[in-house]
Structures are given as structure tokens and as C-alpha cells.
């Protein structure tokens, strides 16, 4: 079965780029969200296998969204997507429960590698 992914980013451009990479690598995009608040809503609704989460977004940032999602589902697999210069925020997100991070601009091979790593770390239910 395909891996079901929720993509969270406030830039349409980024969502498109990430989703293209993931689809090319055999994953299924089940939903997209452009704010932290919507990410939490969509997560509850869709229960995806994986979430890619931007940090700087309107209406609840990515870190708070990670916290909320982890409250809902402690097994959630979230990978942070951040630009250079946001390392401190990435660390905070990891502390909040995110499994790993990707630095923009994305490199397809690196994206797949990180996702694979996340799934090896967290045993599937």
C-alpha cells in the first residue's frame, strides 16, 4: 500500500514541489494544508502515515502544529521542512515530537532518504 502523506506549507509552490517529489517516489498525497491550524484539522480527519511540516506559517506555526498533532496521535510521523537559518526552530520542533527535518531547497534523493529513515526508526504498527 502506498504511503499516505499530508503536506503542510503556506507556499503553493513548495507544496507542489514536495508533492511532485513524493508522488514520483510512489507515495500518495492525501491532503494539503496551508496553516498550522488546518494541518491539525486535516491530520485528525485523514490520519496520514506521514506529515511534511513547514515552520513559518500563518494561523499557528509549524511547531505549535507539531505539538497539537502529537497530542492527538503520539505516534504521528512528522518531518519538518525548513529553510536555512531556522535551525533553532527545527530543534524546538524535534523536541516537540517531529521525527526529522529537511532543509529547503529540496533534493529529491535526500527527501526519500529522510523519509526512509523515519520509517525505520519508528516501527510500523
Amino acid at each position, binding site marked *: 500500500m502506498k504511503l499516505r502523506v499530508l503536506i503542510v506549507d503556506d507556499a503553493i509552490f*513548495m507544496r507542489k514541489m514536495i508533492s511532485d517529489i513524493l508522488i*514520483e517516489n510512489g507515495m500518495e498525497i492525501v491532503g494539503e494544508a496551508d496553516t498550522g491550524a488546518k494541518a491539525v484539522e486535516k491530520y485528525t480527519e485523514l490520519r496520514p502515515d506521514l506529515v511534511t511540516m513547514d515552520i513559518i506559517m500563518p494561523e*499557528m506555526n509549524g511547531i505549535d502544529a507539531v505539538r497539537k498533532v502529537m497530542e492527538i496521535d503520539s505516534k504521528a510521523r512528522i518531518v519538518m521542512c525548513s529553510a*536555512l537559518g531556522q535551525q533553532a526552530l527545527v530543534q524546538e520542533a524535534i523536541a516537540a515530537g517531529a521525527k526529522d527535518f529537511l532543509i529547503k*531547497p529540496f533534493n529529491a534523493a535526500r527527501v526519500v532518504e529522510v523519509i526512509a529513515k523515519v520509517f525505520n526508526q519508528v516501527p510500523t504498527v
Partner: protein
Amino acid sequence: MNVSDYKDLYASEAGDALQALENGLVGLESATEPLAAIHELFRNAHNLKGNSGAMGYEEIVEASHALESALDGLRQGGEITVAKIGCMLGVVDILKKLVRCAVTEGDGSGAAGAAGTAGDGTGAAEGLDARPDAKSPLSIRLLGEALVLISNISDEPDQAGPVTRPASPPETGLGSPEGLSQRITSTKVDLERLDRIMDLVGELTISRIRFSALASALGSKPLLDELALSWRLTSQIQKEVMEARLIPAGQVFQRFNRLVRDVSHETEKRVKFEIAGAEIGLDRVVLESMVDPLVHLIRNAIDHGIETPPERRAAGKPEEARLALSARRERNNVALEVADDGRGIDLEKVAHAAVAAGIAKGRAADLTEDDVCRIITMAGFSTAESVDKLSGRGMGMNIVKKTVDSLGGSMHIQSAPGKGTTVTLLLPINLSIIKALLFSVGPDVHALPIEYVKETSRFEQGSLKTVRGDLVLPGADGVVPVLMPDDIFGIPFESGSDRYAKVIIVDTGTRRFAVVVNGIIGQQDIVIKALPPLFRGLRGISGATVLGSGKVAFIWDPHILFEGRCAYESDQKAVVSEN
């Protein structure tokens, strides 16, 4: 993954981000919640940086990173000053140019999109050294300018080194309060694609008309019934696509925040700029061609209409003037309005200047308000004593009027001395489908947009008179110059042996003509098609349409078609009095 596939999306989102940055920065001077506004600005700069990085546009990454850092400085409690905002607006301008360069450039740069992009450093020298020499020098120069501008902002004395950001994130969180961050739940569609759909719907409409012609000829009732349903569906699709193609006026309106700020600073006036009706939809072509006219009207209002703060105080008005730009729907038109509460147009002065310049005859006092408004929009007319940078060349209002006219709209000026001026531009919502009068000249069918048709009429052959060598048709309200199709296009014209000849009385708003034709076919919705390149040079023809019969009909543009016809056209009053 090919980066160039993302170019359109990138360009569109970068444009939005830059516009949001510009508006946000302009609004920052008077923001009630500056911190929330700065968060939003930061987010936009940050997204631009991220997207540009993915595209491999390194100069944009660096310039937006510098802007992001400057905003971060403000977020950490740096003082918001007009000078800083000015510098950041300068960087936004440069970013606009950089984005334009990047998206119009060939696909040569940053193929993988994953190439190591800009580091954290904002030092100009460091950035330049690292650059491969294949980069366009323009973008490097622009980046240099941006970095210099940003270095002016820095509060710290040591501005040479890279800006270091504090390790801890702002404790308030990055999410901005509701209201600021309303997101639109819509998808972006390439306008060209919508235009193609529009074209196809046009073809469908034409095929629909031909179908019903055939069905009527066959006289088959079930076929006609079925067609009636498909008619309704096609018109619905047509309506939906037409609506979808409309662009909210706000997309253009918001660009003027910056203009108003710049012009009012330049002229040392205080202006509160208000926008209303930003959601009103207009045809893309109409909206695009209204940018320059609106720029002119806004500049005029600030430069000539609005008084300086001391003048306003003396006149008992609030020092801060009000300038409103609005759009509203008026049946099948959209009215765009620029209204100020300035000194109003000095009608007396205009009338005197017009008489002195020989534009108007008689005494200044005899001119009506309407006359005066007409004079203002004439070419070369200006009451400004000197030509300055902003306005006063006397061409502006004339160009505004011409642009509005060419779109089939109209312009109205209302002014009250001491109270202000309102200029209203009444424009068609849609340019793709119009109502037109179809008529025949010889074997050909032609079309004239219905708003130019005053009436259709006939006259007894041989009843025409001549004035100064031109044919005229006597009518109830004076004489109307007559044009024969062979005068206009050199179309061979046979008036026939009937006792009466048919004419269309055409009114362009400024002039009136009678055009002799062979037959009047009737009124119909037609789909305007652009002329193929070979025919673009045809003056006086604005496009063509395909009729139900499959025949092509040219659509006349009376403004151009009748330009320069008849020696006395601009002087009709004189002609009327002669007769």
C-alpha cells in the same frame, strides 16, 4: 524533476509575496499592531527566499534573506522608522526586478535546483566572490544595491559582518493573529488557459447558432427541443467562464498604496488612501489598460487636487486629505472612481485658459460645467503654470479619456470648488462577448458594437445635402456627416435602386456620423476574436466574429475608423448654426 516546470507557479507566488511585502511595509508606518504586521512581512520574505532557493535563483535568495534579517531586527524590538521602511521598500523594488530577470531568463540557471544555495552570510563581497561568472551582471548589480540598502538599516554599529540571529525563537510564536492571515481557498489558473477555454466556449456558441439554423430549416420538433436545452447549458458555461475570467480590481488597486505614499511624500501632503470594492471583477484587458489612467488620476488628485496641510488648515479642513479609489458594479459596467476632498477644479480658470488657448470660443462665462469637463480631457490642455515631474503636461487627461473610449467606456468628472473632485470611469465588464448590430454592405456582413449605435434610419435617395463639400444628412438635431462604405474601406458600394437608403447613425460620444449600408440584419451577441497577425494592421477594425452561417464579420471600431473624417467634425456646433 525539471525546475522550469515550476516557473509559472513560482512567478505568480513571488509576485503575490512582493505585493504583500510592499503593502505591508507601506502600512507599517501606521500599523496598530506592528508586531503582527512584521510577522506577516517576515513570513512573505521567508517564503520568497525558500521558493527562490528551490528554483536556484541565488541573488533573490540573498536579497530576500537580507530583507528577512532586517525584518527580524524589527521583530526583536528595532525601532520602526520611515527611513528603514524606505530602504526595505527599495529592496522590494529590487527584488521585483530580480524576479522579473530570473523568470524571463533562459532556463540556464541552477538546473538541479538543489545546488548549494546562499549561505547565511549577507556580506556583499563574500557573495560576489562565490558567484560563477555565468550569472547575468544585472542581477549581481541589483543584489549589490539591495545589500547596500539593507546595510543602511542595521542598528548595530558593526554592519559589515553577517547579521546574527538570536538563537531563541520569539516566545510569542510565529503565528499571526486571525484577520491578518486570511487565506483564499481557491486555486490558481493560468490566465492563458482561461482565455483558451473562453475561446472554445465562443466556438461552442457559434456552433450552437449554426445548429439551430439547421434545425429550424429541418423543422424537427424533438431536435429543436433538445437544442433548446443545450442552448441553456452553453449559455451557463459561457457565463461561468466569463465570471471566472474576471479579475478582482484589488489586484491592481493595491499597487497604488505605494504610489500614493511616494507622491504624497514628494509633494509634502498628507493623504489617507482608501480602497473600496477591491473584490469587484473586471476583464483582464480592461483592468490592465486601466493601470496607467489610474496612475495619472491619482497623481493628479494628489498633485493638483489635494492642498498642502497649511492650506487645508486655513480652509478649515482636516490636514489629512482623503483620497478614495473604488470599484462598483453598475449593471453591465464597472465604475472605477478616484475621489479626493481637495480644492476641486477651478472651472473659471479652465474656461479662461481654454478661451485664451483658442480651444473654446465665446466668453468663458458662457461655458457650462460639461463643456469645461470636455475641455479638460482635450489634448494639450493644462492650466498648470509649469510642467513638473508629476503632471502638468496637459496630455494626461486626454490619454485617460482615449484609453477609456477605446474600451467602449466613458469618463465623467464631477467637481465642487473647495470640496473635491471625483473622476468616474465607466467600463464594460467583459470584452469577449458583446452585443452588436449586424449589417450588410454588398455581400459582406459587418458588426458594430451596440453602444455606438444611436439609431438606424433611412433617407430618400438624393435628399443628401453638402456642407463644405461633404455629404450631410439633415436630422432633427442638426446635420450629420454621411459616410459611404467606399469612403471608409474602399468597399464597392451599390446603393441600389430603392427609393430609400438605409443608414446607421453612429455616436462615438464625441462625434456623430451616418453610415450608409445595404441592409440592417439585427442585434446579436457576438464573440470577439482577435484578428490573425496578417490583418492586425487594419485600422478601424477591432476584431472579427464568426457568424452562424460560418461567415466572418469584421467588427468596426468607430473611434479609429472615423478619425480625421470631415474637416468640420470637431466643430459641429458651428456647422449647426450655419445651417
